[in-house]
């Protein structure tokens, strides 16, 4: 009678990424969180400084990054919104970002583009990052012209970044039809950033209410 024995756990070659199996259960919580945060940060860097291999990084899509950015932007814009509209602004930005990303993705897919829905929503969400940075910067700037320049630059950056990722979707003659809604999406977000008030302007509005 032969007996067979062996080791189920292959400790020799740990798999890359989240497929480590049993090992990730035993690791400290900090490791788990930091791994996800590092992955998010890696993708954000890809948006800021697009490189040749950036497309492969974004194939590993996740929606935490877009959610984080969306929350940051909604919080920032509702901070300086008029008092009666704080909740409306927060909700609107949230809905515009997620609804807009979904609609742009479905539109590209319907036009015949070959893309994966969640990957595209992930890309669109991450490419909001320049606009989030612009909104943070505009928190301290009250001159409309300077804000206009910053927001315009961020808008261009976002559009170029997302077009870089979505270039190989083979749309042929319909590229303009797919790019236009994307530009509209970033434009409306940029517009909301542009017309939001800075911290310096907050005071005048409250005075206005008391007068």
């Amino acid at each position, binding site marked *: 009678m032969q007996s067979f024995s062996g080791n189920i756990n292959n400790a020799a070659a740990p798999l890359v990424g989240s497929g480590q199996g049993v090992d990730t259960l035993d690791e400290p919580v900090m490791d788990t969180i930091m791994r996800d945060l590092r992955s998010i940060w890696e993708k954000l860097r890809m948006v800021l400084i697009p490189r040749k291999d950036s497309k492969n990084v974004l*194939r590993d899509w996740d929606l935490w990054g877009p959610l984080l950015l969306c929350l940051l932007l909604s919080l920032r814009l509702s901070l300086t919104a008029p008092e009666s509209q704080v909740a409306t602004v927060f909700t609107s930005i949230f809905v515009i970002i997620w609804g807009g990303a979904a609609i742009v993705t479905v*539109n590209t897919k*319907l036009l*015949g583009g070959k893309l994966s829905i*969640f990957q595209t929503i992930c890309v669109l969400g991450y490419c909001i990052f320049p606009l989030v940075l612009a909104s943070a910067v505009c928190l301290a700037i009250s001159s409309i012209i300077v804000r206009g320049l910053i927001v315009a630059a961020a808008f261009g950056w976002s559009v170029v970044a997302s077009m870089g990722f979505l270039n190989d979707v083979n749309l042929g003659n*319909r590229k303009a*039809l797919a790019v236009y809604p994307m530009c509209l999406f970033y434009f409306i977000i940029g517009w909301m950033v542009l017309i939001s008030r800075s911290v310096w302007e907050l005071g005048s509005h409250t005075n206005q209410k008391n007068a």
Partner: protein
Amino acid sequence: MSKQYEQLLDMDEPHLDTAQSQLEFQNFVLNSAEANLVAGQVGGGGGGGNGSSSGSGRASATTAGTSSMGANNITQTKVSASEFMQPQQPMTNNTSTNAFWTLQFYAQFFDVDSTDVAQRIIAAVIPRGGFMDSIASNPDLYGPFWIPTTVIFALFVTSFIAGSINAYFSNTSADYVYDMALLSFASTAVYSYVGGTSAALWGIGRYFGCPVKILEVVGLVGYGMSIWVPVSLLCILPSDILRTVLVLVAFVLTSFLFVQNISPFYNNASNPAGRTVALSVILIANAALALAFRFGFFAFVHKVNAPGDNKPVKPTPTVGGSNSSSFAAHEVPKDLATAIATSVFNEFANQIMDSVEEAITTSV
């Protein structure tokens, strides 16, 4: 025995010489006819070879050309890992094989190129006749969705700009703040205009026996809205007269376009009241939109707000700043919006009732 097995399985040689192909997910799928049956698609897959006409991607879909012997053919297709998450179905233009709840069904309405859309927009802005005929062969939903959406955003943006210019010139010290309710008011108004007018025109056509295809009507109304984008851009200029003139021009152009394209359907109508009803619906809907434009979004006058008064004041023109220290935000005149809506609805309902009564009495 093995020979029979080989005949049953029509496998391509897997080409496992490259690392890439070794890592590809080997996905065995049925050929298109059986896939249709299995997926339970409506219409029962008329005719075998309807797959994969539009683009190939990485999933090499099966065609009727594969050497198929016997009933059960399993063809091997390679799907890469990134497409594993969503099974890619080819976006075909065949309605009979796609259920209306799938995304592929709607792909047939987006089968337009950029030049097509541009041509249709120009044909709508400069009405030379024959718009419906030009879109009849390939009605699309791209224009009717994105043009009204553009109008909504254009309204929101230009309304804010016009308001802040107005605030700047009226020399108030307060800042002009935006009103998010304007965005929701704009979307409600524009989308209900497009949906309501198309549904009304289609319903009237069906009622009076001159049926119009719903997609063509939606295309007409959707593309007809393109004129409102440049109009809203031009309405930034701070002149009431200019705004009124612009809105009137847009009203005349869109009404002319609709009338020109809807009238031919009623040429052979048995009941002349049908044409009247349709034309009146067009005029009323366009007038309502024009009024909402002019007075809902671009009615900027300097408002005098007494301190502590938080009711939206009816706009009264005043000269100079006087004793008001606050310039209230341009609040959406909600009373005005509901007033317009109810009056339009009442007028519309009355017109319909009159014409229907007339139709019934004349036909009896």
